[in-house]
């Protein structure tokens, strides 16, 4: 590591430490808050945080958002208390099902990308400081910013240290796997891994199941704790309930105008990647479903009319929540969810330990990115899932965020785009922005292109399609 990293960087607080302070804020919020009361609080917050809070706490979703924020708060808080409660903290990527960790008495999950995202949303200077330091270590600027923010924080700042890493991107994402190999070495903590056989044949699936079982055994060994069938049943029971709610929410997306607020896409997978399998998660998603049903009844929609129904084929942008989710909504552009919502939750058979492990393996195999980028053919599987979603939700356009470092999706984007047009006549907008670093392409520029696309291509299409019936 450079002289720089050693003497300068350690003075800074790391991502997790700073975040745990921020999320505690949500406890300070009264459940019913007047706009004045809110502005009063925001006034005292640093600008980046205030901006995100404005997005989260827009009156139409405020009560749900507070519920969600409190859930995140509980999640991070438990990570901090894990030590004194004799629990081990697992650092997992977003595409590893946290309920597997929740099934263990002595373990708690902390999720890389969720931390980066919360950091970008709520910390002053967003994640850029950490990104800069990662670059300072000589890491490539073409690497995923979500991962680089994580590395920059972990290696150059004073921060909370997990006990073990699970790497779950072998086969579906090089940079994520490489980042965690790198992290494990420099944080000097064990690395457990789960390979996605890039093989959808029965043989490939069985092999994946074998790998998954081995991982579970390794976790049991690391914790000195055997999976307890009763505890599993309880956790998976919560997960199953959450899965049912997921599909209720999914169906609510089908109405036009869409009663599901744009930002719920983020809320949903934020919960999915952290608390899935806990009662808190069930409560949080229930609150989302209730809110949407209520909006459906009242026929509430933030804009005069719904002008576009967009599926975001991969990630969204997280460096300006208000400028992204809320802005689109207020312009009648519905965000029907993005690639990270496509995790196809299934109800797991809780008959026996065996059925539950098999069920968890199936869940893991269908997590976002794992399922698409880890398939026999990345572009084909990705395309199939997106086509399916566009039909299910009656989308009239697809938008690809073009997250700079995402080499797998970038190499499938042109096939996706042309095949989607050929088979469904649905147009794709390919943007070029970084999901976590605003500096790459500012939100204003992205908004400009989105409007151009909606006005020229989508509106046009909607009228003709409606005309045809």
């Amino acid at each position: 590591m450079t002289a720089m990293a050693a003497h300068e960087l350690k003075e800074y607080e790391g991502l997790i430490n700073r975040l745990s302070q921020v999320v505690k804020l949500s406890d300070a919020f009264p459940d019913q808050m007047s706009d004045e009361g809110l502005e009063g609080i925001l006034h005292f917050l640093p600008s980046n945080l205030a901006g995100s809070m404005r997005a989260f706490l827009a009156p139409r979703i405020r009560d749900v958002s507070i519920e969600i924020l409190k859930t995140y708060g509980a999640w991070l808080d438990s990570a901090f208390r894990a030590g004194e409660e004799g629990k081990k903290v697992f650092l997992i990527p977003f595409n590893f099902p946290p309920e597997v960790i929740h099934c263990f008495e002595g373990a708690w999950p902390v999720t890389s990308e969720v931390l980066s995202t919360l950091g970008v949303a709520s910390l002053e200077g967003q994640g850029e400081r950490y990104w800069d330091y990662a670059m300072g270590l000589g890491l490539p600027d073409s690497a995923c910013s979500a991962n680089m923010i994580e590395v920059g924080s972990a290696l150059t700042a004073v921060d909370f240290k997990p006990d073990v890493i699970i790497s779950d991107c072998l086969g579906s994402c090089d940079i994520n796997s490489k980042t965690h190999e790198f992290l494990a070495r420099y944080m000097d903590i064990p690395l457990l891994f789960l390979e996605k056989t890039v093989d959808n044949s029965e043989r490939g699936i069985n092999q994946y199941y074998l790998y998954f079982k081995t991982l579970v055994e390794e976790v049991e060994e690391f914790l000195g704790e055997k999976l307890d069938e009763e505890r599993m049943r309880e956790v998976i029971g919560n997960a199953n309930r959450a899965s049912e709610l997921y599909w209720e929410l999914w169906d609510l997306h089908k109405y036009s105008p869409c009663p599901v607020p744009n930002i719920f896409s983020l809320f949903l997978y934020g919960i999915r990647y952290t608390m899935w399998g806990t009662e808190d998660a069930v409560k949080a998603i229930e609150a989302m479903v209730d809110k949407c049903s209520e909006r459906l009844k009242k026929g509430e929609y933030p804009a005069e009319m719904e002008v576009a129904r967009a599926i975001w084929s991969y990630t969204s942008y997280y460096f300006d929540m208000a400028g992204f989710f809320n802005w689109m909504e207020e312009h009648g552009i519905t965000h029907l969810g993005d690639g990270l919502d496509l995790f196809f939750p299934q109800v797991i058979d809780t008959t026996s330990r065996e059925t539950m492990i098999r069920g968890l393996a199936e869940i893991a195999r269908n997590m976002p990115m794992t399922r698409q980028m880890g398939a026999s053919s990345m572009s084909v599987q990705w395309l199939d899932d997106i086509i399916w979603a566009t039909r299910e939700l009656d989308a009239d356009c697809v938008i690809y965020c073009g997250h700079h470092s995402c080499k797998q999706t970038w190499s499938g984007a042109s096939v996706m785009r042309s095949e989607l047009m050929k088979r469904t006549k649905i147009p794709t907008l390919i943007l070029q922005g970084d999901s976590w670093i605003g500096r790459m392409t500012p939100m204003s520029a992205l908004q400009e292109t989105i409007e151009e696309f909606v006005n020229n291509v989508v509106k046009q299409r909607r009228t003709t399609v409606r005309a045809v019936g």
Partner: protein
Amino acid sequence: MKCLGLDIGSLFSKAVVMEDGEVLSSAVIDTTGNVADEVDSLIDAVLSAAGITRDDLDGMGVTGRGADMVELGDVSKDDVSCIGKAVSHLVPDVSLVLDMGGQSITSILLDEEGDIMDFMRNDKCASGSGKFLEVMGGALGVKIAELDEFAGRATKKVSISSQCGVFVESEVVTHLNEGEDAAAITAGVCESVAKIVISQALKFGFQDDYTFTGGVGKLKSVTDRARQRIRGAYHEFPCDPQLAGAIGAALFAEER
């Protein structure tokens, strides 16, 4: 009916006066610091060229990146729709428009009715943009206007292989230092722009009747090289391709 179309781009501002779909007059100036005043004189210029006054105008349409900087016109449209409009009006057979502007290369897909089906813009990387050519011209001591004629003098091929504008410039400087012929380097730069246009055209997965618009679309040293490699029937844009946006804006004004 007489309408004026205004296109305030990142490098140039263009204006046309049209009567019933025919271009009466046109004018082009550099876009620099003081847009409001420039546009005024631009409008005067194009009106006097058409031999009419502002009172004779039945409408005015405005487009381009700088459109929001002038409180002018009855219609304001983004440049994609204006370019699409102009092409479907002047070259109705065309289904693929390759617009090469100051800031970006945009490919626009038109359906049988000439409505925009789809478009793709490459505006993240400077390579291939008018701005890029201007900067390279600076390094080579050639103005954009003279680029064509200068590249034509090339007797040998110098290939430019960097894909980042910043490095292309240092590549150009290196070639110059090694005593390469500036004309040959210029030709190489045009070739590199042509290649970007080719990939942009191929991105739509099919090639059909197409045309070039935008300032760079004027440069034969770029378009000829691109045409050799793009299958499908080429249709020449019947007037100065740089005016496409302004023409579209005028047509929109006419519609109202």
